[in-house]
């Protein structure tokens, strides 16, 4: 589903990704963990074109989005192709990024209508079904400002799902939430995983990573230091940095 090969990313003189590669199969749930500033979020954002890579190759479902030639120059496909490829991925942000001027329902139907040209009458039943699934059917006509953080994030998940992505990217989805609200968001994500959605989750929730992820990736200083099945990595971390990180987290 996702093939990222040797991604390099610099912000000015700071090298945030120093050659990160990832291969992801359909139905996999991968958790990316690591200290702040290790490059996990940047990696995720490179996958769906929110950041541009300086070197490396990205292919989504076999379609190349960016590649690097022999001279080391990185080339992206034309904008329209990149947009089409990126539509296979949905994304959930730490800060939700709901549209404050639209109601919950409008937030969900806006993209299918504007981007895919689906008729309002056709998309509304599906949007309501999604709202029901994330447990927010009653909030259909509320504006985002009236929702709690956990509710906002569940709307954001429903909004992403309305575009019927094959892959869901989560960028620290619970980091901006009060501890008692993270549970409801994690439950929704767990439910998605049980439905075999392909998910790549950057998270600080170790319990979630251990229980839901099939594979866990530990990143530090722009490199993947360890990448193993969840139970193995948590039970017996190999790299000293992983051990240190997990000791501090748990």
């Amino acid at each position: 589903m996702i093939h990222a090969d040797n991604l390099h990313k610099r912000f000015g003189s700071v090298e945030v990704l120093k050659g990160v590669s990832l291969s992801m199969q359909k139905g996999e749930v991968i958790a990316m963990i690591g200290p702040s500033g290790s490059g996990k979020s940047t990696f995720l954002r490179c996958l769906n074109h929110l950041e541009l890579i300086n070197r490396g190759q990205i292919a989504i479902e076999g379609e190349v989005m960016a590649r690097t030639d022999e001279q080391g120059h990185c080339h992206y496909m034309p904008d329209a192709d990149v947009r089409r490829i990126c539509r296979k991925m949905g994304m959930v942000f730490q800060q939700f990024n709901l549209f404050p001027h639209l109601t919950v329902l409008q937030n969900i139907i806006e993209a299918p209508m504007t981007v895919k040209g689906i008729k309002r009458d056709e998309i509304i039943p599906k949007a309501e079904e999604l709202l029901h699934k994330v447990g927010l059917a009653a909030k259909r006509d509320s504006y985002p400002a009236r929702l709690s953080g956990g509710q906002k994030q569940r709307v954001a998940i429903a909004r992403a799902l309305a575009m019927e992505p094959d892959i869901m990217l989560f960028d620290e989805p619970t980091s901006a939430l009060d501890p008692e609200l993270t549970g409801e968001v994690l439950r929704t994500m767990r439910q998605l995983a049980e439905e075999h959605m392909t998910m790549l989750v950057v998270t600080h929730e170790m319990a979630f990573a251990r229980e839901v992820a099939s594979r866990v990736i530990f990143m530090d200083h722009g490199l993947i230091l360890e990448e193993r099945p969840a139970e193995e990595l948590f039970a017996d971390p190999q790299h000293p940095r992983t051990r240190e990180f997990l000791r501090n987290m748990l």
Partner: protein
Amino acid sequence: MDYLLSTLGPLLQGTAVTLQVFLVTIVLSVPLGLCLALLRISRYRIVGRLVNAYIWLMRGTPLMLQMLFIYFALPFVPVIGVRLPDFPAAIVAFALNYAAYFAEIFRAGIQSIDRGQYEGAKVLGFTYGQTMRRIVLPQVIKRILPPVSNETITLVKDTSLIYVLAMNDLLRAARGMVQRDFTTTPFIVAAAFYLLMTLVLTWGFQRLEKRYAVYDE
């Protein structure tokens, strides 16, 4: 009382001229200002710089001077020189000038929208144009209503500048009568007319603000 009533006819005629200049200027300068704002923030630096220079020129010289230039000097400018009658000349000056002010208001509004909104739209597949139309600009409107209201009210009063082209707007009609009849009554009536026009605008903008108050950010 009879005198007061006799002033109404000419003053109403003047008001009609004032309102025409006002309305045509709004209709032209708001879209033009929006275009300028979008060009100003465009990724092509040179375009942004040109717009910046334009705004500097328009805000940095008196509107009256611009109007006089377009009416008297433009006909002698090579290539683009045209001779415009008084009403079009006034409109061109007002529209170009107010577009510069509106452009700055729109730009500030657009730039006040959080980057997360663009990213949220982008990952859903919106193009830049769709993001602007459906996500950013609707939120910008709410934020810029107060300064736009200010600017619009200022425009009502600025229209009195067209007297320099010898056009009979509300203020010039009043002044004509004051000088003819040696009484200041027409000034007071004219003031009442201006107040009435700005009152209507104030109400209108208050209603708009209420309508946009249904959501918080």
